[in-house]
């Protein structure tokens, strides 16, 4: 059941030109070594038993790091239907870290995958009530057709990569 959900999320990501890696929580640091383009900046993920401290990801973002990093690593939730990331703003800087670097790498627990926009809304409603009241639904790379043809990589990330923690 869960594998099926992840499969469909991965398929939707691929439709949005985003890539996907699946890994168990314990394997995250190694997986990041493989997929993260350096330099990278991140914020604490807040997932039990998972830490980025032993990786090459710089964990105290500064404006300079936002500007110069290739990759930004944050936790996200996912929407299966569209391969969407739900990025919740926080004081640590999840929003700018997911926004400024060229690549956004979203770490998503399998249990944080929501089937549809509708389902996401009922979860988000509760989050809003708890005070976590700013979130971005981000699907694929930033893009524009304003110059006459579709071009990826405008103000937001040019590449999007999901790492799904299959056992979380």
């Amino acid at each position, binding site marked *: 059941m869960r594998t099926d959900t992840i499969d469909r999320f991965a398929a939707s990501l691929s439709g949005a030109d985003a890539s996907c890696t699946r890994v168990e929580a314990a394997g995250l640091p190694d997986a990041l070594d493989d997929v993260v383009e350096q330099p990278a900046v991140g914020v604490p993920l807040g997932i039990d038993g998972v830490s980025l401290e032993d990786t090459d990801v710089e964990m105290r973002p500064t*404006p300079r790091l936002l500007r110069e990093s290739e990759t930004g690593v944050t936790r996200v939730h996912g929407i299966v239907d*569209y391969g969407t990331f739900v990025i919740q703003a926080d*004081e640590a800087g999840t929003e700018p870290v997911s926004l400024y670097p060229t690549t956004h790498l979203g770490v998503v627990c399998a249990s944080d995958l929501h089937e549809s926009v509708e389902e996401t809304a009922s979860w988000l409603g509760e989050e809003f009530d708890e005070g976590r009241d*700013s*979130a971005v639904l981000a699907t694929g790379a930033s893009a524009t057709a304003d*110059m006459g043809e579709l071009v990826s990589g405008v103000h*937001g990330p040019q590449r999007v990569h999901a790492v799904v923690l299959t056992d979380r």
Partner: protein
Amino acid sequence: MSADRERKAAKIRHLLETEGDAVFENTTHVNAGRYETNGHRDDIDELRTEARAIKEDAIERLPELIETVRESVEANGGEVYVAEDAADANRYITEVAESKDAHTLAKSKSMTTEEIDVNDALESAGVDVTETDLGEFVVQVADEAPSHLVGPAFHKSTADIATLFNAHFDTDEPLETAEDLTQFARDHVGEKIMDADVGMTGANFVFAESGTIALVTNEGNARKCVVTPDTHVAVAGVEKLVPSVDDFPPFAELIARAAGGQDIATYLSLVSPPVDSPVVDFDEPDEPLDGSTDDREFHLVLLDNGRIEMREDDELRETLNCIRCGACANSCANFQHVGGHAFGGETYTGGIATGWETGVHGIDAAAEFNDLCTGCSRCVDACPVKIDIPWINTVVRDRINRGTDREFDWLVEGLTPDADPGGVDLQKRLFGNFGTLAKFGSATAPVSNWLADWVSLRAVMERVAGVDRRRDLPEFRRETLVDWFASCEPLATAGDADREAVLYPDTYTNYVLVDRGKAAVRTLEALGVDVSVVPSHESGRAPLSQGMIATARENAERVADGLNPHLDAGRDVVVVEPSDLAAFRREYGRLLDGERAQRIAANSYEVMEYVYGLLENGADADVLAGGGNVAYHSHCQQRTLGVDQYTEAVFERLGYDVVTSDVECCGMAGSFGYKSEYYELSVDVGETLADQFEEQNVDRRRLVASGASCHEQLGSLLPQDSTHPVELVAPTIERGPRTR
């Protein structure tokens, strides 16, 4: 041609030459994307209904929602200011900028800020404003007005933008491709965002209960404008208020499909400012964000500027449902060809602009372009919140007619055959009374037709009434359909089936294209229907298209009176001309009282829809003419009613090989193509249809069109004649002369 008509024609001609190609490419691309992505779900109509209900309820509760959002934003730590008008909003915004000692402001795309010209106000206060949406940035660099609600630079091609940027900026190498231009603009604008003292956004929706604003973008610029500087000003019309953030799903599903042909927008931000994210101060590049102690400031400026009055106005209120997706522009054949610099007012563009411009800038702002809405109704299906945009255009046209004071109005009113006031322009009055004119033309044919060909008369008609002399006028037939029907015997099979129908003799079918009426009678009788044809009034379509609502209502009442006994007798109403069927099914709901309108709508059928129903219920298809190659153009209003599918289904059943057009409208649109100021636009629109058919080797097929004006347009653009579908399938057997 009168000076005013010549001025309009010249403006349109200029825009067709300079901006037409880029607008066409951009709008038709996203319009096709809308059809495709809507096809990915089977519940689009349910979502539209849901979205509409949310908006309608919110508009109803607007005063209460303003109070709710004031409380929630203040509880979040922000401020709400309800601005009465543009000057009030600009004063507040410049005061905020001054209080922050701001010199730079980065702004994401917002039509509401265009409405109040906030950039000018800020520049006067010494604040440097940068538009960060790349389309808006292009328009800002060019010092032009946006030509589209969503694609402000839809009127510019890649080459146009390259020329603009290369002249304006000092780049190492000349910019050429869309990628070059995007990268350059992104970097240039990106620096401005990092340097900005204030971030300004609009809001696609404002959720009152949590003080949350929704921002929909693909570029990510709005996200950066919100998160980077410590001060955020959001400007939104009061109509953007929606009760709760729980209401966002239908809008999230609909807005990007309608606007850009995407299943979902790249970014949908739901932010409740001031946001928790740390301020990103690029002047302190090595200061960790999590140590940021900067306080954030947030101001929500809710703009009235006429909206509260629109809410009180039973007709203009409809406009407030608009979510500014631009689908009405993309689905509009006229807009696709000429763009928003013609089809738009001071701020807003496309079909819905008539409502916005009337409400926020005044009716004169709408009067200039309102006639570009032909009422083809293709935007009705496109609108994600089910706004009846053609009706708003009709109502405003009616008000424009009434608002014009002309000398001798009192004299005109006594002499005209209609119920509208004297202010109506002669051109509109002429076309609005087409039913009366056709009756006279038929009674005096062929003399009326000789006169119509007389060059001197055509020159006078063009000068006085703006009827373009490059168009052939309809040729009136001496024997009307009604006369013919009465003069001959029904086919022997008539009455064999268990159905009785009254064929509505619309003006064109009765006086001009009589053969399609005869074919309809023969077809129905061959299929066993007991048919009657009785004299009727013009449906009201003609005056309606000129904004003459009083006359349309009078005609509708007369038609309803005439049809009543037939409906009482259990007869179905069969209509040949799709625009008249559309009047019965759509506009009569606004012209007649509910029950009367409903009865006509429920019992009326387009002729091929009726044939389809008969065949489905066991009528013998073999009595009809089948086989052959057909190129079929269905009628715009027929497509909106969803009845074009029946013509295609009947063709298929009868073994025809059919190719179809997929343009939104032929461009003739009733009287539109006859009007001298719009003739060239009408031909430009029609050529897209002709080109499409020529690519499909139409010369080797029978050309078939459902609408009278489509028939006229095709006849003027292609060498071959067209017929109505029912003429193609009608049996060859003729009715005999009446014997007694």
